[in-house]
């Protein structure tokens, strides 16, 4: 155990102690988001980009479009690839190197929310069947980690996609300098991450809460439909709690969609 581990343990005790009294360190209500700010087109070099601040958590999403070949089982469809980099600048807990399981989980949960909601019309991204399709590459970077990367990444991702310009494609060449219109985005899925400490259910974990939580539930919704879910943490939820959180996610998702 390092000194850092021990100091986290003390902080975790405090967070759990507060939760028992239905309180949070930053005085938020149980189902209250921190302040959210979106800045679209933050990286002019990227075809689409958004910087999101969720409280003190800061992330950037960048979208690239590359011409590639389709998957053999879907010859008439473009592709989506989502990757997350937990850069060491963002937290003393992050190390450089190949993606760890938590980075993979973030990427896959954000990816599922977008893919399963039908946000992208993959058939429209096909240029020549079986040969040329657009590959949408979504890169998610964290600059400052202060809890709840799921929701920050998901919000940055959909916002960046909504603002992605389509490059021109002529005679087998992608001309990035000339764009024609925007990437066709059909829906606006958002993710809400809830967590449980003891018996207390809350939304949008801060860094301390991310460390102290027993169980976590991310719900991706679009309108009145659920499109992806992921439970994490080594605690559990009852069925009643999950029902309550799904209801709440429909409510809270409206707040997030308004920002887009």
């Amino acid at each position, binding site marked *: *155990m390092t000194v850092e581990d021990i100091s986290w343990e003390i902080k975790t005790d405090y967070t759990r102690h507060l939760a028992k009294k239905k309180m949070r360190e930053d005085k938020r209500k149980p189902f209250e988001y921190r302040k959210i700010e979106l800045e679209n087109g933050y990286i002019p070099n990227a075809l689409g980009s958004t910087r999101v601040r969720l409280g003190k958590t800061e992330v950037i999403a960048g979208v690239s479009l590359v011409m590639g070949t389709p998957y053999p089982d879907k010859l008439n469809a473009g592709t989506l690839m989502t990757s997350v980099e937990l850069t060491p600048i963002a937290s003393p807990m992050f190390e450089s190197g190949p993606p760890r399981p938590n980075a*993979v989980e973030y990427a896959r949960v954000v990816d599922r929310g977008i893919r*399963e909601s039908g946000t992208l019309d993959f058939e429209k991204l096909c240029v020549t069947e079986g040969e040329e399709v657009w590959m949408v590459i979504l890169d998610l970077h964290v600059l400052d980690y202060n809890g709840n990367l799921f929701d920050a990444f998901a919000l940055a991702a959909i916002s960046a996609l909504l603002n992605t310009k389509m490059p021109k494609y002529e005679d087998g060449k992608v001309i990035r300098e000339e764009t024609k219109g925007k990437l066709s985005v059909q829906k606006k899925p958002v993710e809400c991450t809830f967590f449980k400490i003891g018996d207390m259910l809350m939304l949008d974990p801060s860094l301390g809460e991310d460390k102290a939580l027993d169980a976590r539930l991310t719900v991706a919704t679009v309108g009145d439909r659920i499109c*992806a*879910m992921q*439970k*994490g*943490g080594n605690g559990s939820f*009852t069925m009643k709690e999950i029902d309550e959180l799904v*209801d709440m996610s429909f409510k809270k998702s409206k707040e997030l969609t308004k920002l887009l």
Partner: protein
Amino acid sequence: MGMKSDLKLIKNGKRLDGRKPDELRPITIKAGVLDNANGSAYLEWGGNKVIAGVYGPRECLPRHRSSPYKAYLTYRYNMAPFSVDDRKRPGPDRRSTEISKISAEALERVIEVEKFPNTMINVFVEVLQADAGTRCAALTAAAVAAADAGLPMRDLIVSCAAGKIDDTVVLDLGKKEDNFGQADVPIAILPHSEEIVLLQMDGDLTKEEFKEAIDMSVKAAKQIYELQKKALTERFKKGGGKE
């Protein structure tokens, strides 16, 4: 999910393999099938064949992962290269990394890791043949293997999936239903307390459909739990398990 097709997945109330919407595929479980592992289980579920082995508690390596409060629990979900139609490149990929992570978290809820500080417990599951629903089969087998290893446990874990095909909520998706269906909801529960320790979902569901899917899986979990118990009692009867 999501592959478009004109294939009808339900005809006259029956599914492609003749099952009713709330019917499981046949499952068989055998505990104590490996010699080296401290605990093991073999499970067949429809066309799935998985084998789970548990090692530990043993010395924790790497040392910095050890905790003075609990055993370090690892879970490795691995698909054999020959387990699927097109050869799977060996080694962990993003999908198996994610499955391993959430399955380890689920198991940590039942195995009393706090009884073995400074040690590690390793759970390995090999998918030998895959036929949709492998993460559920793997976790169900892993729970039996952990019990076979004699680890103190709060409960077993039963994992099962439900989903949606042709606008109908059904239990335990088969391969075609998984590829051409509209949603998939794998869950894992503790059979006694009905706590949910693993939950994923992808596709498109209304709130009501989601609830129906969960209820269906919870009901099925009770059936699977009986099979787990049977496998474990068989194992410790005279002549049960591997000699």
